[in-house]
């Protein structure tokens, strides 16, 4: 075991700036995908609940098409597929677009579930106090829906952060792409993969930790 292999962490130390740059791009993709995906999710949930049949059906079709195939398929579709139609999205745009489309579908269902979990009586109570539709939505529905969806959202956002590691396939220079490059260049696979594992663990743990704190705050507020 480990014959002739000596750990050399200096290999990682030497390329720290490159790694940091990669991490920054990873964070960029992650944050953008989460923010835009949430927008898609809220819009999608409202569309799913729309009284217009066509709108509701379109939203449902969108959700099923996205959820039943890998995010990587959408990345390839946009990056390798659209050019044959004369559209040339760059790597970063393709990556974010694919992650937003894919996870927007999950968030649609999460937000819809959060809305559905609000008891009908809450709306009736608000109405009985003389609140209008918008006030009811703002004061009663939205805060409660937010409470309901946080745990599931947290899971989905962790998936997004992990999925950024796939965007290297589109030659996005994100963190794991840099790691792969360095492994080929230095053959220091053990060192680089250990660092990568730890970095991702810290990222995902702090993300879900932050959301859990937020959740605890909300519970306390109740």
């Amino acid at each position, binding site marked *: 075991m480990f014959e002739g292999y000596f750990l050399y962490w200096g290999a990682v130390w030497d390329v720290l700036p490159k790694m940091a740059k990669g991490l920054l791009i990873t964070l960029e993709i992650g944050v953008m995908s989460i923010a835009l995906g949430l927008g898609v999710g809220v819009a999608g949930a409202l569309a799913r609940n729309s009284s217009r049949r066509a709108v509701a059906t379109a939203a449902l079709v969108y959700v099923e098409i996205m959820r039943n*195939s890998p995010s990587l398929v959408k990345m390839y579709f946009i990056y390798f597929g659209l050019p044959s139609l004369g559209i040339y999205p760059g790597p970063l745009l393709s990556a974010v677009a694919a992650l937003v489309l894919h996870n927007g579908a999950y968030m649609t269902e999460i937000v819809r579930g959060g809305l559905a979990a609000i008891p009908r009586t809450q709306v009736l109570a608000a109405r009985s106090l003389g609140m209008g539709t918008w006030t009811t939505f703002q004061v009663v529905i939205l805060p409660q829906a937010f409470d309901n969806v946080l745990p599931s959202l947290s899971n989905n956002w962790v998936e997004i952060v992990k999925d950024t590691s796939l965007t290297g396939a589109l030659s996005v220079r994100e963190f794991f792409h840099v790691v792969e490059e360095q492994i080929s260049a230095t053959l220091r696979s053990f060192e680089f*993969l250990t660092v990568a*594992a730890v970095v991702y663990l810290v990222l995902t743990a702090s993300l879900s930790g932050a959301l859990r704190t937020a959740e605890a705050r909300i519970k306390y507020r109740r």
Partner: protein
Amino acid sequence: MEWYTGMVAPLMRGLLVTVELATLVLVLGSIGGVLFGVLWGIAGPVVRAAMTIAIMLSRGIPLLVQVFIVFFVLPFFGVEFTGFTTAVVALSLFAAATITEIVRGGILAVPHGQMDAARSVGFTYYQVMRIVIFPQAFRSILPPLITQFVFLIKATSIISLLGVPEIMLAGREVIERTLLGFQVMAMIWLIYTAICYPLTIVGRRLEANFQRRGFRPALGEP
């Protein structure tokens, strides 16, 4: 004819690899997950803590990084794998970890009163588990298990990044040759949907069916 030999045939060969890989992963992962899940049910605190840490790692580190770890790190221990075997091992380990979590959740979701009632009519511990707890846990496990199956089938796509010639890699090769990116990726997208959507429907039916009979679903993947 050229359309067939140039595009459809290679994709089908890739699909065969995907199906083979997915089948192995689902079978091995389910066996491992159920064994570990049941073990969790009867294990002491040390084993439980170890299993919790393993589950945490499998959830917090991107699957692609886990695959690379298996590919690059196991050779240090004298085990050398082909790309395909690496894929099977890494994905099955991941599958086992996540399914363990689902099984554990299912066992915990059985209300404590069921245990009391079963013991009070004279069942031994083994009978309590076999006749009352596991059947109820199984029912609540099934829907999230199927969701997880869909997740795992989709996850096999990342193995293309390891050079295993499954459908995604086959697709990229065809695109390089034919430049028909849109058609190829649309077809792959369709194929994944054709595999995953029926499973999703089955899972949803089961869940609705169980809920109607008053079983509660365990928590699983969102």
